[in-house]
């Protein structure tokens, strides 16, 4: 019995999709938003993106090396985390702050909980919230064209609806974090991911629809100038802040969203409600980051109540 053939349990064929090429595609999908951020905010933004991405990858490498674990930086997931954090940083924040955020994201949120697939919270958002709490001033200072001023969302919060320009917000010519300002650039990346089948509309779709319904109905209670389903208010809320970046790139993070189809719908609804609630009635004009990380924590619960019925027990329909 020499020259035995390979044996293995079936199936004997596998699809070509791998985790690392999924992560690589997500990285590519983030490039339009990154490029626009650099175009919009200049060299500071480019350096910030490089620092956060490089620090994230390096942190993962050093941790795994020290812990004698398999080095997994080739799977691009640390790249995605670092880049996403960079896109969530104000362009004027000091570089060390971005680096600190990346270390927090990879070390505390991801690796200490077991590495890829085990983190219960989106690492980039966890780090962003950590920085927001620790360095509130610098994390919410937005400079545009050399002037420090409020973001369009902050204007909305002040009740100054008339002073925001929707077209500027769509293109991204507004102050904000590096990657969140251009709706068009974000949507280009999102369409790319949808076409590849990497994300679908279930989470971002329900998220955005729920959010629109919520602010359409309750917008008038937060600001007397805003009408019932006021189109200008809704457009400004949709294009402002981190909603688009969050809905398409962070709420859709596989690891921290429900695996069940109906659970993803529930998750989207919870996200929409929380974001609306935080933005209209919260202390800050922003709400997406907190809405997503709180919803991340609700995922096990959501999955528990949305377990699918198996085939032959009512689940075939």
């Amino acid at each position, binding site marked *: *019995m020499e020259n*035995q*053939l*390979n*044996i*293995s*349990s*079936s*199936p*004997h*064929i*596998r*699809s070509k*999709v*791998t*985790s*690392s*090429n*999924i992560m690589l595609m997500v990285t590519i999908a983030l490039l339009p938003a990154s490029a626009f951020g650099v175009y919009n905010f200049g060299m500071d933004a480019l350096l910030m993106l490089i620092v956060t991405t490089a620090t994230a990858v390096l942190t993962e490498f050093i941790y795994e090396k020290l812990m004698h674990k398999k080095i*997994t930086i080739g*799977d691009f*997931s640390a790249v995605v985390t670092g880049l996403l954090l960079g896109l969530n940083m104000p362009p004027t924040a000091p570089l060390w702050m971005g680096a600190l955020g990346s270390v927090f994201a990879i070390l505390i949120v991801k690796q200490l909980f077991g*590495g*890829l*697939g*085990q983190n219960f919270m989106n690492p980039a958002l966890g780090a962003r919230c950590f920085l927001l709490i620790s360095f509130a001033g610098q994390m919410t200072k937005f400079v545009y064209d050399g002037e420090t001023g409020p973001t369009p969302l902050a204007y909305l919060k002040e009740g100054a609806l008339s002073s925001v320009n929707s077209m500027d917000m769509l293109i991204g010519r507004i102050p904000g974090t590096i990657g969140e300002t251009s709706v068009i650039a974000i949507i280009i990346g999102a369409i790319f991911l949808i076409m590849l089948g990497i994300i679908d509309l279930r989470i971002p779709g329900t998220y955005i629809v729920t959010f629109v319904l919520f602010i359409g109905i309750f917008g008038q209670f937060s600001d007397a100038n805003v009408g019932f389903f006021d189109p200008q208010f809704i457009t400004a809320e949709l294009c402002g802040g981190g909603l688009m970046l969050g809905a398409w790139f962070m709420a859709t993070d*596989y*690891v921290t*969203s429900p*695996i*069940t*189809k109906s659970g993803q719908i529930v998750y989207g609804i919870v996200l929409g409600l929380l974001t609306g609630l935080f933005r209209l009635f919260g202390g800050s004009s922003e709400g997406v980051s907190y809405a997503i990380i709180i919803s991340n924590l609700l995922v096990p619960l959501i999955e528990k109540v949305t*377990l*699918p*019925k*198996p*085939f*032959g*027990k009512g*689940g*075939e*329909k």
Partner: protein
Amino acid sequence: MYIIYNKLKGRKEGKGMALLTFKGGIHPDDGKSLAKDKAIVDVKPKGDLVYPLSQHIGAPATPIVAKGDHVLRGQKIAEAGGFVSAPIYASVSGTVKAIEPHFNPTGAKVNCIVVENDGEYKEVEYAPVKPLEEMTKEEILNAIGEAGVVGMGGAGFPTKVKLSPKEPEKIDYIIANCAECEPYITADYRRMMETPERLVGGMKVVLSLFEHAKGIFGVEDNKPDCIEKLKELTKDEPRMEVMALKTKYPQGGERQLIYATTGRAINSTMLPADAGCVVDNVETMINIYQAVVEGKPSIERIVTVSGDAINEPGNFRAPFGMNQMELVEQAGGFKEEPEKVISGGPMMGFAMFTVDVPVTKTSSSVLAFVKDPVKRLEETACINCGRCVDACPSRIIPSRLADYAQHHDAETFEKMNGMECVECGSCSYVCPAKRPLKQSIGSMRKIVLANRRKKK
């Protein structure tokens, strides 16, 4: 909108304009073009024939020949070993050389009758048969059982037992499984192209056992020529219908096929008969026809020999017991030394460590590949992407069940419906982390089943 409406309607009523199918499933490269257009070739083995006594589910057959006996092609050499069992017939003429253990395609060593081929192919004279119309149901069933017909799609369940449900009057549908959804295999396709009348004849035999039943041919729509042929042949058969199914793996899975064609759903605790259905694949139907109408036992089958390591892929009428290596030689031998050879399809077949095994009643194909696509894969962490959930035809959560299985948590595994898995392998196929999902779930299912037997 109209198309969507029809799709929904089609699913609910089990028919309509839209293609019939099920939720979930995958679309692997089908590789069928390699052997699809190769007509069936008769093969006459030269070497010894090895007949495993266990080629079916149930009790092994009991040998009724001894070393030194001379046997003829078509002569019974082993008797059914119980109610759920099947007899075995010699497929060549020759001398019984030994009754000894040999490896079968699944890698197990089982007792086999070895016949030295005299190369003359002298066949027994079969007893004349009565016309189908004059046979009683009991006579029909006995003819099927006596001929040693078993489910030839892969499971090998004795057909006579399957056709004897507790309440035969409650059977509404006889479904011929013509899906052939496994990649590479074209054996049933060739059967349907070359002798569709024998398939329809087999259906006629089975329908005569169940007066209230309707006969359905469920064919994947990647075989439009078969659909056309069967439609033409059955146009004057009011009790038969040909249904085009969406081409998707595992469309030929029993539960998925029943659901696609009838809209009825069965789970792990039910048999098809509980939903008023009986399912038999093409090869089995043709063997039923042969047994009842021609009075001939089950002694050979169509085997596809294919894959990128095979010189001339094709379809062969191979006698049971024939060495699979000899069959590979019939197909021009190996182009290159293969890394992997599979008995059956790439999704559910068995990888063999040696090709020195016999063709059995359930060997639908021998597939040889130069490169083993699984060997080089490295398992990485689950990223919770949900592709396995999308692909799972049983609508369970393979990634979580594999976790419970790896943690030996049988209780949670059962609670989370792990036993509903049909082990089709779709989850392992799509997993981007290349986790052995089906493999883990399959092992746990075996443990749970073994524990259940112990308790009884």
